[in-house]
């Protein structure tokens, strides 16, 4: 059977106006259903005709999912809040700027106008073999084409690879981990709140998904506690092109210092593994240390321990080392006065 791309298959479209209705629809259609948030990841799958769901459940009409609310302890961001709304939200800018910084470098302005925070954290990997429709592990097959002797794997994982070497493409995910966000998941059994870092899973656990959502589950909101409000933040994304490019790697850290000592810190990187990695060992190692280049240096080296490069991605090791270093020790800004 020949393959053809770029013609969207016919499907039935459901546009529920409440989460409960959406859940009912998902339950009703089971594995034939496809959840549509902003759609920027979904439409690739559909237009490529690799996935042909019978029922598409469009969440864009659910008002309750699209808001930034203040809570007793921080804020709650509806999963369908767009990245532009996050970038321009005054409270987020003021207290949780780390997330705004991350959201601002996602893809392109139009994509940020449409793409949602829920979609950004739940999107699938962009491994070019997998997305090209190759029957790899992640697609249910029995091979990783990127991790073969000739595989082209410049953008693939250096850590925690398990058969599959794809990486998570999200820019907001590490920021949310650094902010100690909680993800609110509505399952058929009820609501479940998980730590940001536990929302993501590697291929060792489930090789076909990047997150914990099972068919029928919905990510409804992301809660950011006030724990890190107004902390010192660092976000950096390294990419080839300055628009429309996924991170080769990114880093996010939230830090509270007293004097020059690091009192509390959370740090995460993405683009290194199939899930955004919270660097707990680094956090433990730098706590109580002065915030300076030497500490950053040490942290960077610690962060890349155990990294295994593939043929074309060895650069990710110094990249991760340096990004972690900068996230902790800072960057010396260069200003060439004329």
């Amino acid at each position: 059977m020949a393959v053809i791309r770029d013609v969207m298959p016919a499907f039935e479209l459901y546009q529920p106006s409440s989460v409960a209705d959406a859940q009912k629809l998902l339950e009703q259609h089971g594995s034939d259903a496809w959840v549509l948030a902003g759609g920027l990841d979904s439409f690739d799958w559909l237009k490529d005709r690799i996935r042909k769901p019978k029922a598409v459940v469009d969440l864009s009409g659910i008002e309750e999912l699209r808001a930034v609310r203040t809570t007793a302890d921080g804020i709650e961001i509806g999963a369908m809040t767009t990245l532009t709304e996050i970038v321009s939200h005054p409270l987020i800018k003021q207290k949780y700027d780390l997330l705004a910084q991350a959201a601002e470098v996602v893809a392109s302005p139009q994509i940020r106008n449409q793409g949602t925070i829920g979609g950004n954290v739940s999107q699938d990997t962009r491994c070019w073999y997998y997305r090209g429709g190759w029957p790899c592990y992640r697609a249910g097959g029995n091979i990783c084409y990127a991790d073969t002797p000739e595989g082209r794997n410049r953008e693939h994982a250096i850590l925690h690879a398990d058969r599959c070497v794809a990486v998570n493409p999200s820019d907001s995910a590490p920021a949310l981990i650094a902010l100690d966000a909680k993800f609110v998941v509505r399952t058929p059994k009820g609501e479940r709140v998980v730590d940001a870092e536990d929302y993501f899973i590697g291929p060792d656990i489930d090789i076909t998904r990047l997150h914990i959502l099972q068919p029928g589950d919905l990510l409804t909101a992301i809660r950011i506690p006030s724990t890190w409000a107004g902390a010192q933040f660092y976000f950096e994304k390294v990419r080839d092109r300055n628009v429309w490019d996924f991170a080769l790697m990114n880093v996010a850290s939230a830090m509270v210092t007293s004097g020059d000592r690091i009192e509390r810190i959370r740090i995460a990187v993405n683009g290194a593994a199939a899930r955004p990695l919270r660097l707990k060992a680094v956090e433990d190692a730098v706590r109580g240390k002065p915030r300076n280049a030497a500490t950053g240096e040490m942290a960077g080296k610690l962060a890349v321990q155990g990294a295994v490069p593939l043929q074309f991605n060895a650069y990710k090791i110094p990249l991760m080392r340096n990004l972690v270093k900068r996230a902790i020790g800072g960057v010396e800004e260069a200003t060439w006065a004329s």
Partner: protein
Amino acid sequence: MGFLEWATSPWGQSVPIHIAWFLIWVAAIAGFLFLIVHAIWLRYFAKPKEFAGAASPEVSARIPKHVPRHSLVARLFHWIMAASMLTLLFTAFLPKVGVQFPWVTYHWIAGAVLTVSILFHVIHASFWLDFWSIWPDKIDLEDAWRRVRRFAGMSAPAPRKFAKYPLENKLFHGVIILCGLSVILTGVFMMFRVRTIFFPRNPYLFSNMTWGLMYVLHGLAGVGLIALVMMHVYFGLRPEKLSITKSMVFGWMDRDFYLQEHDPERWVVETPPSSSSSSPSTSNRVEGRGLTDAG
């Protein structure tokens, strides 16, 4: 629904990638049904076992209280194999039925252990144990035919007592060999597709089709093992087989059970001069002799 999962290769060719996972349930249910049916049969319908002939009293007298059956090495092998097999089955199939954990590393390590232990067993059994004792012989086949006739209500002489291993045991071993070697052989090659300590990864060692068939074989043998292991465990736990099970734990078998089911002619047990103890060295020696006896 097909028994195989197919995928379209990057070149647009249809290739099998593995078995359809519902076969896991087929195997489990089949295994379970077997043991239910068997248990019911045994409880309500089966006639008591009948064996032709009985050991002569002098032979019986010669038999020690504890008949040495499995050397420590053999038992160690069995239990290592059992542990690795169970690990393999659980790590293989639990994730497929929704219990998610990082299984691959455990799986290949257990696979490596199983492979090594089986290699050891093949060598050990070939050169140190009574190699032929586990294979059905002519009498087994004749007796099997007698049992079938008797089961069908036809007349046939009573089957004779067993040699060291009952026929079921031998048959089970045979099937296990088939499935075990299949998973091991395919599994060893499959290690080229994951990161292990053994070889550099090379997923392109074989063609897509060869790999696909290998995965299918691995899967089929694997689900086969689900049923087989269920049966094995079931039999191991059945009260009338406990003596056999115990022998795999302690190395020896009760004299009574031995005399009841086994034919001292076919399974010659040489009495150690001093005692009936089943120290490893002793039983080893006894079994070692068994080899020459069987020749």
